[in-house]
């Protein structure tokens, strides 16, 4: 609690201690004084002033500033009205409960704000720079690109850069939600906001602080509340009309029946006061944005940045999801996916032969073969066994291995050399191998599908996505094979970057009302599509800066499984927000109606105002905990 809140708490306690005996005495009939001097009024004024003087003061001050219809003013009118009809006890009670509610509300909002900012506590306070052999702490803002900074164990990495010396494990959980620390060493790129686990790192900065990941993320999160959901805008508009409407109704209620129908003035004034107590839209004005804020917070704890509450709203209505293939569903790197040895040869032998033949090449295919060999057979490739390796452009490589002539290349090479081979129809790049003119087998190299992709797709389907689509610039066989493997409904292949926008547009036109389309890409030439879709989801760690800027949602650790998790958070957030709206409006409407009919008292009105507010806030705080 802040000092201000503590003060308020003391005032409430003191006022309550004075009020309760007065209340009891009144009910036992001991406060009936037979004098013209208003003793009981003065007695009740003591707790009233203690607990509510600031409300009266603020009401007067704000009116002098031209701010009329604020809560302070309304509470004053309501309590003055109660005093006017000699309901002293209720006037104090209304003020007391109002203040308790306000205190609780302030505390709850502060608490949830704190827990969100703790979660987003990724901002580095300083950077260490070496000056004349001495470490000096400077503001990260003052470090320029190319400077060498020193990050000690346990410190937060202040700027993006490349490690020049030292090895360590870095904890990226604050940024990506990934709890396994990542190993870094000389040459590794590291991003700001992560925590250096064990070793001392010297880092050469590659970006200024303002362009570093951490500054960008903070900016995104801070700006998130400015992009409001439709529900939020509705509430803002609603609040604008609600208060004047209820206040006018109260005035009519106070004046019309007594004057026209000659009803007792006091009774109708009381009913009007009940209206005034309920006239504040606080429950909605606070709980709705708080709910969205909590939802965004819950998503960021999962390593997903949502750039505004409107995107949570859209996400909850997502019916079609379009994926880019390379880098999103697949790793975007080549790897050996299949080894098909011929009759004369074993798998390892074939792989060894291929790796040796391609050993001197720096083509991605060669890299994939060498990696596979290192992974599956042995860590050392004895290149001294290879002689006369030469590349035949557009065909492959011919080399002497242990004196035998080995050909490694595509079908054209086999035909050129007159070797019989077994055609391999697999999608991807196929390398055929022949030794001394005899076919040995073939190896398929393809972009590997992310291991979690299939599960991610089926989870999305379970979360209510009706259609999954894949777009790729790749060949038809490759695209269709991937789509089939992952269980994707539709696939469009051989697309140029511009075609992707057209495809997304035609998919958008197929959507019904209240159905939304999301696009997921890694950002390499995806930015236009990300912008065109109802909701653009980009890969954060692999994607380009342009994509992160164009996207509405960023997956910090590139894990597409998180999409369905965020959809769940979005749904839950919307559900909680709607619960609050319906609950608050119903209670208020009910008490207004009962109040107008003379069936509600001040106590119920206070509950409809502050009680509802507190309940709605507590409900909103649940969004923070959505997993």
């Amino acid at each position, binding site marked *: 609690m802040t000092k201000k809140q503590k003060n308020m708490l003391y005032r409430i306690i003191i006022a309550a201690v004075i009020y309760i005996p007065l209340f009891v005495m009144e009910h036992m009939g001991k406060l009936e004084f037979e004098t013209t001097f208003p003793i009981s009024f003065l007695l009740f004024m003591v707790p009233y002033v203690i607990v509510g003087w600031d409300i009266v003061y603020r009401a007067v001050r704000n009116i002098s500033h031209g701010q009329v219809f604020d809560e302070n003013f309304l509470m004053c009118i309501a309590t003055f009205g109660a005093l006017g009809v000699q309901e002293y006890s209720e006037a104090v009670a209304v003020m007391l409960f109002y203040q308790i509610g306000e205190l609780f509300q302030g505390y709850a909002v502060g608490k949830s704000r704190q827990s969100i900012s703790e979660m987003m506590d990724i901002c580095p306070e300083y950077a260490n720079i070496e000056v004349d052999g001495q470490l000096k702490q400077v503001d990260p803002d003052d470090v320029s690109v190319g400077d060498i900074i020193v990050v000690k164990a346990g410190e937060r990495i202040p700027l993006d850069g490349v490690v020049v010396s030292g090895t360590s494990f870095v904890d990226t959980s604050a940024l990506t939600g990934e709890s396994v620390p990542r190993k870094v060493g000389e040459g590794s790129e590291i991003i700001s906001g992560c925590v250096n686990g064990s070793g001392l790192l010297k880092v050469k900065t590659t970006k200024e602080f303002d362009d570093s990941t951490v500054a960008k993320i903070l900016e995104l999160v801070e700006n998130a*509340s400015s992009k409001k959901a439709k529900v939020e805008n509705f509430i803002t508009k609603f609040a604008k009309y609600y208060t004047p409407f209820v206040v006018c109704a109260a005035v009519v209620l106070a004046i019309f029946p007594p004057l026209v129908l000659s009803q007792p003035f006091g009774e109708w004034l009381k009913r009007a006061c009940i209206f005034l107590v309920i006239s504040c839209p606080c429950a909605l004005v606070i709980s709705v944005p708080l709910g969205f804020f909590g939802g965004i917070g819950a998503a960021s704890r999962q390593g997903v940045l949502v750039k505004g509450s409107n995107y949570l709203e859209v996400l909850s209505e997502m019916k079609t999801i379009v994926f880019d293939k390379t880098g999103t569903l697949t790793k975007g790197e080549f790897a050996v996916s299949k080894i098909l040895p011929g009759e004369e040869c074993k798998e390892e032998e074939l792989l060894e032969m291929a790796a040796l033949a391609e050993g001197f090449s720096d083509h991605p295919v060669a890299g994939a073969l060498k990696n596979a060999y290192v992974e599956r057979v042995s860590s050392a490739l004895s290149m001294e066994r290879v002689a006369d390796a030469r590349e035949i452009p557009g065909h492959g490589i011919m080399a002497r291995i242990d004196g035998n002539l080995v050909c490694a290349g595509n079908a054209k090479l086999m035909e050129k050399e007159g070797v019989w081979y077994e055609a391999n129809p697999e999608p991807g790049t196929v390398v055929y191998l022949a030794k001394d003119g005899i076919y040995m087998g073939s190896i398929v190299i393809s972009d590997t599908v992310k291991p979690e992709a299939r599960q991610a797709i089926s989870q999305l389907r379970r979360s209510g996505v009706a259609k999954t689509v894949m777009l790729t610039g790749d060949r038809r066989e490759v695209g269709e094979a991937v789509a089939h493997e992952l269980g994707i409904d539709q696939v469009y292949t051989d697309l140029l970057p511009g075609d992707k926008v057209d495809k997304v547009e035609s998919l958008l036109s197929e959507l019904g009302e209240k159905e939304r389309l999301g696009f997921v890409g890694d950002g390499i030439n995806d930015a236009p599509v990300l912008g065109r879709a109802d909701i653009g989801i980009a890969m954060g760690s692999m994607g380009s800066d342009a994509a992160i800027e164009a996207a509405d949602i960023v997956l910090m650790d590139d894990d597409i499984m998180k999409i369905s998790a965020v959809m769940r958070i979005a749904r839950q957030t919307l559900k909680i927000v709607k619960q609050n709206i319906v609950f608050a409006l119903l209670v208020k409407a009910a008490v207004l109606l009962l109040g107008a009919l003379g069936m509600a008292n001040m106590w119920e009105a206070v509950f409809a105002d502050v009680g509802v507010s507190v309940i709605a806030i507590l409900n909103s705080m649940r969004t923070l905990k959505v997993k």
Partner: protein
Amino acid sequence: MKKKFKLVDLDCANCAAKMENAIKKIDGVTDANVSFMMQKMTIEADDARFDEIMQEVVRVCKKVEPDCQIQM
């Protein structure tokens, strides 16, 4: 120029919305955003007249919510 300010004792969401609207009406302010959740205010305004505009912003905020302080 865009600048951020911390707000102290911004206690009600309704006031934040009122402050935002009032600031947006000031001449020379291109965009303003008062975030109740972050307790922060972002103001985008004319470079040349920024200080002058800020004085006006402080005045307007005092009028709407006198308890709230802008940290410069």
